[in-house]
C-alpha cells in the first residue's frame, strides 16, 4: 500500500466520496433525530408508573403498550440492522409500494435507533430523583405536566452522552445500508475499488473519512455536553441570613 496512491484515489474520486459522505451524514443524522423522537415517546411511556388510583381499563391498556414496546425493542436490538434493512426494504417494495431507497434507508435506521433510544431515555428518566416527581405531584401537577416540565429535561441531559453515542454509531453502521444500494460512503467505496482494483488504498481512504466524520461529531457533541452542564448561576449581592427574614403577616 502506498500513501501517494491513496492520495491519488482520494483526489481523483473526490466527487464520488463526497456524494457518499453526504448520503451517510443525511442518513445518520436524520436517523438519529427521528430515532430520538421515537425513543422519547416509547421510553417516556415505558417509564410511566401508574397512579394507584388508575382505573382497571387504563391499567390494561398500559400493560398492552408495555408488551408491544418491549417486543419492538427486543426485536430491533436483537437482530442485525443489515438483516432488518433487506427484509423491510423488500417486504415493502414487493408487497406495498415501490418506495424510494433513500426514504427506506432513513426509515430503517430510525426505527433501529428508536429501539436503543427508548432504553436510553427510560434509564435517563429513572435516574432522575423520584423525590422531584413527588414534589411536583404534591403541588397538584399532573403526571404528564411533571414529565414534560421536570423529569424529561433532566432525563435528556443525563442521557446526552449515550444519545450522542448513537449518532457516532449510526455514522459507522449506516455502512450496512449499502445492501439496499443507497449511495452512502461504503457503497461508493465499493464502486471506486471495483474501478481502480486498488482495494487496500481505497478502503484505507474510506476508513480515514469515517474516522474524520466521527471525530468531528464527537468534538461537536462534547461542546454541546459542556454547554448543557454549564448551569447558569447568579451571584447574590448581599448575604442573607436569618436575621433579615421578615415575614409579612397574612392579609397585610
Amino acid at each position: 500500500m502506498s500513501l501517494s496512491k491513496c492520495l491519488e484515489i482520494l483526489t481523483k474520486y473526490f466527487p464520488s466520496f463526497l456524494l457518499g459522505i453526504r448520503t451517510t451524514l443525511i442518513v445518520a443524522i436524520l436517523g438519529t433525530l427521528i430515532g430520538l423522537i421515537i425513543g422519547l415517546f416509547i421510553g417516556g411511556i415505558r417509564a410511566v408508573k401508574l397512579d394507584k388510583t388508575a382505573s382497571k381499563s387504563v391499567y390494561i391498556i398500559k400493560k398492552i403498550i408495555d408488551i408491544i414496546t418491549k417486543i419492538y425493542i427486543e426485536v430491533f436490538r436483537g437482530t442485525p440492522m443489515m438483516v432488518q434493512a433487506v427484509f423491510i426494504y423488500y417486504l415493502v417494495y414487493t408487497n406495498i409500494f415501490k418506495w424510494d431507497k433513500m426514504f427506506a434507508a432513513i426509515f430503517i435506521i430510525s426505527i433501529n435507533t428508536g429501539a436503543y433510544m427508548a432504553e436510553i431515555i427510560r434509564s435517563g428518566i429513572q435516574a432522575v430523583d423520584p423525590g422531584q416527581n413527588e414534589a411536583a405531584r404534591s403541588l397538584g401537577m399532573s403526571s404528564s405536566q411533571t414529565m414534560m416540565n421536570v423529569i424529561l429535561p433532566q432525563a435528556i441531559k443525563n442521557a446526552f452522552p449515550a444519545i450522542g453515542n448513537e449518532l457516532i454509531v449510526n455514522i459507522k453502521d449506516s455502512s450496512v445500508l449499502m445492501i439496499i444500494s443507497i449511495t452512502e460512503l461504503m457503497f461508493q467505496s465499493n464502486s471506486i475499488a471495483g474501478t481502480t482494483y486498488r482495494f487496500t488504498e481505497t478502503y484505507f481512504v474510506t476508513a480515514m473519512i469515517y474516522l474524520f466524520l466521527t471525530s468531528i461529531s464527537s468534538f461537536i457533541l462534547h461542546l454541546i455536553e459542556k454547554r448543557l452542564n454549564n448551569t447558569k448561576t447568579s451571584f447574590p449581592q448581599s448575604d442573607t441570613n436569618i436575621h433579615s427574614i421578615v415575614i409579612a403577616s397574612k392579609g397585610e
Partner: protein
Amino acid sequence: MALIEIKNVKKSFETNKVLSDISFEVNKGDVVCMIGPSGSGKSTMLRCINLLEDIDEGQIIVLGQDINKIKDINAYRKNVGMVFQQFNLFNNMNVLDNCVLAQVKVLKKDKNEAEQVAIQRLSEVGLKDFIYAFPNTLSGGQKQRVAIARALCMDPEILLFDEPTSALDPQMVGEVLNVIKNLADQDMTMVIVTHEMAFAKDVADKIVFMDDGIILEEGSPDQIFNNPKNERTRQFLSRII
C-alpha cells in the same frame, strides 16, 4: 373546626404493618407536631394525607371530603402543600421558576402574576437575592426555604412538613425553623413531623406521640413534655432531651 380528621387509619407495606388504627384531628389554625422514634409511622401518616400513599382501612377527611374517594387528586393537592426532608427542588430550573411552575400549570396564572407571588413569598423566607440561583448552588437551609416558599405560592389551606430539618447541618436548622415559626404565628394550619423537641414544644398547639404504628399519647406540649402519662413517652423523651 377540624380541617383534618383521621379516623381509624390502617396501612401495611406487604406484611409489615406501619399504621394500626390511627385517629386524630387537626383544627384550623393549629400546629400539630408528630414525634416519636424512627420507623413509628409518622412520615407514612403524613404521606397518606397528601395521597402519596394510600390507606388500607379507615378514613381521612380533609376540608370536609373523604380524600380516598376524590376523583381529581390534583385539585385536592393544590390545597395541601408538602415540604420534604430532601427538599426535592426541581434541579433543572432556578429558584424563581421552581416557585412559578405549578402556579402557571395548576392555578393557570399568567407568568407575570405568578412571578410576583413567587418573589413575594421568596422575600418572606429571606431569599429575594437568590431568585436566579440554581438549586445546586444553594445551601441546605436555603433549599428548604425555597421549598417552603414554593409550597406557599400555591396558597394552601394546610402545610405538611416531613422532617424538614433532618437533612440539614445543625447551623442551618435555625433558619428553617424560624420560617416555620413565623408561619405558625400567622395561623397557618400545619402538621409537622419532627425530631426537634424544643421546637415542637415551642410551636405546637398539639403534640402527637407515635410509636409502632399507634398513637400512644396526644395533648398539649405542656402535658406531653412536662407530664407524660405513658411510660414509653417518658422513656423516649428522657432519651432525647
